[in-house]
Each structure stands twice: as C-alpha cells, then as structure tokens.
C-alpha cells in the first residue's frame, strides 16, 4: 500500500532547483528537494491540500526540471 501511487522520476538527472507541482488544477513552484520524495511532499502539502494524502503522484523530468502531478484518487461514495 505504501508508495503504491508513486511514479518514480525518470533516470534523467534533475538540475533545476525548483519543481513544478500540479495539483487541483493549479501549478506552483516548490523546492525540488521537497518534491522528490512522496513522504516529504505529502508532509509539506498536506496542511494546504488534504487530498494529497491519498492521491496519485507522478513525476516527470524535462530538461532537468521536475514536474510533479498530483491527482486526487477516486474515493468511495460519501468520502471527500
């Protein structure tokens, strides 16, 4: 169950200090050091985005810049 939703970043090295986070239709910049690990990312974003706790996290590196896409996982009816 742990890290089941994680898609590891490509083998391309991340050179940009800022990563792009895409969550809930928004994008913002975050330190790459915080965005490379799911646990760290959840810890940092959970106070602002509660849905990150159970979400699919995918990573993509283009030209040394990390882009993290966080998609809220479908829940059962009645849950938010």
């Amino acid at each position, binding site marked *: 169950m742990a890290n089941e939703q994680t898609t590891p970043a490509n083998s391309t090295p991340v050179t940009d200090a800022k990563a792009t986070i895409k969550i809930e239709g*928004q994008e*913002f910049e975050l330190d790459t050091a915080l965005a490379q690990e799911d646990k760290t990312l959840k810890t*940092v974003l959970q106070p*602002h985005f509660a849905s990150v706790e159970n979400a699919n996290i995918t990573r993509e590196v283009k030209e040394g810049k990390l882009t993290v896409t966080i998609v809220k996982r479908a829940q059962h009816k009645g849950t938010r």
Partner: protein
Amino acid sequence: MEILNSGSFIPLDNKEKMEQLAFTAATLATEVSRSDGFQSGGQANHQLGLELWSGAEYVCRAHEEATIKNLFLSKFLQSLREIEKQNGGQPLPLQALVVNPAAPRPSDPVQPIPDPSHAVRSNPLPIPLQPVQAQPAPVYQPQDPARDEYLGILSPDEQGERNKPSYADECVPGYDPEIEALVEKFDNESSEPDADISNEPVSDAADAIEQRGSTDLVETEVTFQSESDSPDVVEQSASTETRETEVAPNQNETSVAESIESIVIPEKEPYNFDGCTVTAVIQLLPESSGARKCVVSVRTHDFTPRVAIVDVAIADALSQISATLGLAFEQYRKELPARAAEKVKKEKPVARKQSKSPAKAGKAASIAPSKPDAQTTPPTNAAATDQTQQGGLFTA
C-alpha cells in the same frame, strides 16, 4: 377557628391544621402580652415562643418538625410585634418598674413571674407552672438553664429531657457563610441605628440569638453550618426562604455574565493581504547534522501556497523562524495582487461560457424536431447575433 390542643398531630400539608397553628400562636401571643409583667423584647420573645412550643408537645413528622416550629415561632413573634405597636411602643409595663425598683439597668430586663391563675385561664395549653413564691420578682437570667421565665424552676429530669438531641435540631436550616455575610451587610445598610429591637424581623431576632449563643437553637444552627458542606442536607424553612429572597438581588448583580463576541469571517474575503485570512504553516523537519530544515508555507484564499525552506540552527531556531516567516509574508503580500488578477482573468471566460451554454442548448432543443434540412443556416445566424448581443451586454 379552634385552638390546637396539646399533643395534636400537625401535618404540614394540612391547611386547616396549619391555620389552626397560626391562630394558636397568635392567641398565645395575645394572652402572653396581657399577662402582668410581660416585657417585650426580641430575645425574650423568642425564648418564650420556644418554651410555648416545647410545652405544647405538638406531634409532627420528623422532617416537617423544623418547618412547623419555625412557622409557629414566626407567627408568635409577629403577633407580639403587632400587639406592641398597638400599645404605642411601651414595652415596659408600669408594674415591672414598680416591682423591682432597685434594678434600673436597661441592659438587665426585669421579668417577673406572671400570675399563675391568669396564665392558666388564658393559656389553653397545659404548661406546667410552679407556684409563685412570695419574694421580690427575680431578675430574668437567660443563661440559667434551670430557671424559666414563665414556667418557673424546672426539675433536673425535665431539664434533661429538654437537652435531648432531636431530629428537629438537626433539620434546622442553615445557609452558606457567604450568604450570611451578604445578608448581614444588607441588614446593616438598611437598618436604622435607633430602631427598636422588637421591630426586627424574625430572621434578625434569630441572628441576635445566634450571636449570643445562649439557646438550643443556636447550637443546632452551628452544627448545621458545620455540616452544610454535605449535599444531603436539603431541608428548608420559612426563615431561610426570607433570607434567600433578600439575597437574590445581590447574587444577580454579582453574576453578570460577560458576553463573548464571536469572530465572524466574511464569506468572500477581499484580495488584500491585510483584509483576508492568511494561513501560514511552519514545519520543522527532523534534525540532521545539528540543523533543521524549516518549511514555511503561506497562502490565502484558495491560491497555491508559497513555500520556502531554510536551514535553522537549533540554538537560534525561534529568531530564524520568525525572520523566515516575516520574509514569506512580505513576499506573499507582493505576489497577492498578481495572483488575484490572474484568478479574476481566469474566472471571466468561465462565467461567459456558463452564460452562453444554456442559450445554445435551448435553441438547439427547440429547433431540432421541427425542420432539420431546410432551416440549418438561419439558426446559426440567429445564434451568432445572440452571441454578439450577449457579448455586448457583458462587455458593457
């Protein structure tokens, strides 16, 4: 109205019996006031009422005895006060002054023994009376338990019976010391300095007796106050009720509740840093090599957070966190107008699309079933004109 006989059973819930008790107390007070040598006084009247109550030997339920006794005493004392007022405020009869002219001290009231024949005639209760000896009228000594004011000298057996503990003594109502202090304060403020003692209410007379500590009632009051902390004692009486009613306004004054104002946040907050809710989160990541990584994130509305990460030394963590937080606030304050403008820009097209989509759907639904082939072009033109009109409306 009949006078209650000695040994009558008096239930508290029997109205007729209670009225008879009140009538009996009033009658006794009238007859006592007529007796020769009677001198009205707060303590003496109270003592006399207690003696009459004990001599009457009324039978009551154990838990009602204290209440009925207090009612009897209050009625008795009230009647005595009324009689005294009617007599013109001359408590000392002439005979009392004549009988013992050698004792003119006002603080030492003279209480001659009344005529026993008169007492028997006027008093319907079989109170044992001793024959009066041919001596000068004795000085009333309330401290002497063996000598009674009107009943004469009591035998040691009777005295022993009187000192037996009674359940009624345990049920004498008490009150909290704080309430008592408030009542005394209230009484001191309201009472006149030259007021006669006989004009005091029943509760004041009881206070006077309590202070002197010379009667059985005082002893029971003291024991009750010592036991007043236990919640089992719930018995109330008429005197206590009067005290509570007197104290109630003071309690209301002291217990004025302060209203707590609620914090109201508007549903739509302005895009102004000082006028909106700012959420700041400080996270201290686990220590590594003597320092912590501090993650400070700030956001308002539903914008994305601005996240900053700094290394914080453990020794000076608070000041560094404070500085980082202040810096994050300043940067977010600068960014907020741009974020707000961008959001407003995004929201406008969405609103336009939402306003257009129902019009299009309505047109399509009305046209489709009528003539599908022949009139395909006019609806598009009409739709185009509608769009321009709507667009002109919104841009205006």
